[in-house]
């Protein structure tokens, strides 16, 4: 009982810090996305403005979405629920706050260096060495804080969310270091095809071993609580966890099926991409059965509503992903906007939605008062949902046009006008998502620091 009181009395400074980090960088990240989308529509618009040429805007957008918006959002929820699940206090709030500061310095550094043209030129691993080191340090600090909290726990059993968060943070610290080749500070790369293999081993793990486990952890916490029902099966959840660890760690080569990498590696990647159905369905069956007959409760809680929607998107992105790993399918879908659509269902529809859900679920608990405006949060929900589904539709269509043209040997300049309209629609939807991020930031800041709530 004493421990329970202690946990509730915790200041939750780290969780608040990560919540603000996520809400703020969501605005910046989606702004860069919008800028990039606009440049695809009107390439001459930003001509001769070196800092914001597409080649610099795109990595800035991607890195900020991954490490600025989604990961901190998920970590914010984790810093709230890990001590509670373990019946103890966070090992060190001070260390947590220090981590938030390091994290934000790394993000500012990322934007500044990418805009100035400092890049290692490898997708998802563009950041230069000093920033790589800060990222690895930040993940290691988060892991240290969590593992020490586990050590001090009063609850002997580790709930599945704890397993996921621990695995996600330590595996990312390791794979980020490996994938960014941090032992070669100058280039951050190996040479030739080996570099591509290592890069995509890491690139895939950013989604599979960072976003996916952290999102699963948040869903496994929020859904039972919102439904006020126990998890359908903890055994099944652990099965899903270990299956993910076994299968997800080595399927990165499915990004390189049309590249001369060894066939055995492709076979491993394809077989295990299909085998991903096991951890995915173990997770979804568990969450959906927990929520069965309780959708009213989920609807009543805006955080849970975001999270539950994220799980539905996880179903779509994973089934699509398993199919995309089949070489015959990929002959059409690779190298075009189909993959960009898939990326947005995964990162925004699944992990981003769950990150927002985690934020909206925990913020009233962090601040001790209701959300500033449930209406604004609902509004943001619809804007993100419509924007994301819209992205998927237009980019998939554009991708199919490009893929077909590619197969038929058409030249690129004949295809570009055909997909122009889809790019315009995509930029419009991007504007909507950016606007929603601004609303979300306002709502979250007011919820954390404001004295009053808004009427609904």
């Amino acid at each position, binding site marked *: 009982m004493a421990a329970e009181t202690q946990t509730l009395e915790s200041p939750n400074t780290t969780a608040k810090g990560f919540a603000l980090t996520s809400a703020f960088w969501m605005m910046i990240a989606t702004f860069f996305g919008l800028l990039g989308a606009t440049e695809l529509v009107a390439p001459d618009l930003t001509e001769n403005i070196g800092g914001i040429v597409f080649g610099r805007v795109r990595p800035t957008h991607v890195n900020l979405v991954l490490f600025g918006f989604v990961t901190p959002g998920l970590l914010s929820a984790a810093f709230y629920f890990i001590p509670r699940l373990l019946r103890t206090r966070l090992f060190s709030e001070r260390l947590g706050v220090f981590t938030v500061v390091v994290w934000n310095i790394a993000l500012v550094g990322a934007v500044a260096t990418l805009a100035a043209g400092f890049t290692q030129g490898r997708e998802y691993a563009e950041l230069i060495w000093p920033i790589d080191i800060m990222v690895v340090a930040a993940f290691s600090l988060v892991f240290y804080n969590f593992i020490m909290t586990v050590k001090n726990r009063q609850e002997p059993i580790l709930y599945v969310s704890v397993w996921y968060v621990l695995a996600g943070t330590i595996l990312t610290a390791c794979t980020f270091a490996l994938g960014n080749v941090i032992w070669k500070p100058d280039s951050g790369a190996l040479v030739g095809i080996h570099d591509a*293999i290592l890069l995509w081993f890491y690139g895939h793990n950013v989604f599979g071993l960072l976003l996916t486990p952290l999102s699963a952890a948040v869903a496994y916490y929020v859904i*039972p609580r919102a439904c006020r029902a126990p*998890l359908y*099966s903890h055994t099944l959840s652990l099965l899903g966890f270990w299956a993910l*660890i076994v299968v997800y760690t080595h399927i990165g080569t499915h990004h390189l099926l049309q590249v001369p990498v060894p066939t055995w590696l492709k076979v491993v990647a394809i077989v295990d991409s299909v085998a991903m159905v096991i951890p995915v369905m173990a997770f979804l069956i568990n969450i959906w059965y927990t929520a069965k007959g309780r959708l009213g409760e989920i609807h009543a809680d805006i955080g849970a509503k975001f999270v539950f929607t994220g799980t539905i998107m996880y179903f779509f992105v994973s089934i699509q992903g398993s199919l995309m790993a089949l070489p015959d399918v990929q002959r059409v879908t690779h190298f075009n906007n189909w993959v960009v659509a898939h990326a947005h269902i995964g990162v925004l529809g699944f992990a981003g939605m769950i990150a927002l859900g985690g934020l909206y679920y925990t913020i009233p608990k962090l601040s001790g008062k209701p959300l500033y405006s449930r209406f604004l949060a609902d509004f943001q929900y619809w804007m993100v949902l419509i924007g994301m589904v819209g992205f998927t539709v237009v980019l998939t269509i554009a991708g199919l046009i490009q893929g077909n043209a590619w197969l038929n040997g058409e030249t690129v300049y004949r295809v570009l006008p055909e997909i122009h*309209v889809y790019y315009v629609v995509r*930029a419009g939807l991007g504007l909507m998502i950016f606007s929603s991020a601004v609303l979300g930031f306002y709502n979250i800041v007011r919820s954390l620091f404001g004295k*009053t709530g*808004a009427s609904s």
Partner: protein
Amino acid sequence: MYYPYFIAYITIGLTISLVVFYWAFKTGQFTDQQRARFLPLRDDADHPPVKATRFNRIEIYGLFFLAAAGLGATAAVLTFALYFSK
């Protein structure tokens, strides 16, 4: 040469995973699964809702303006794209 990196990674990863799995097994992480299902529910001391106070007018107008501007711009772009661009 990617083999040494991969072999090192696989060996280290597998070893750590097996050690952690063994630890989990030994410390009874796979027992008492019925109780584990209820772990998220135990801590139910959510703060009672604070009553919302009167809404600041300027704020609501500002926010509506922002939201309407976002949606309006989106609609304008879509209309332009679908009907007016060649």
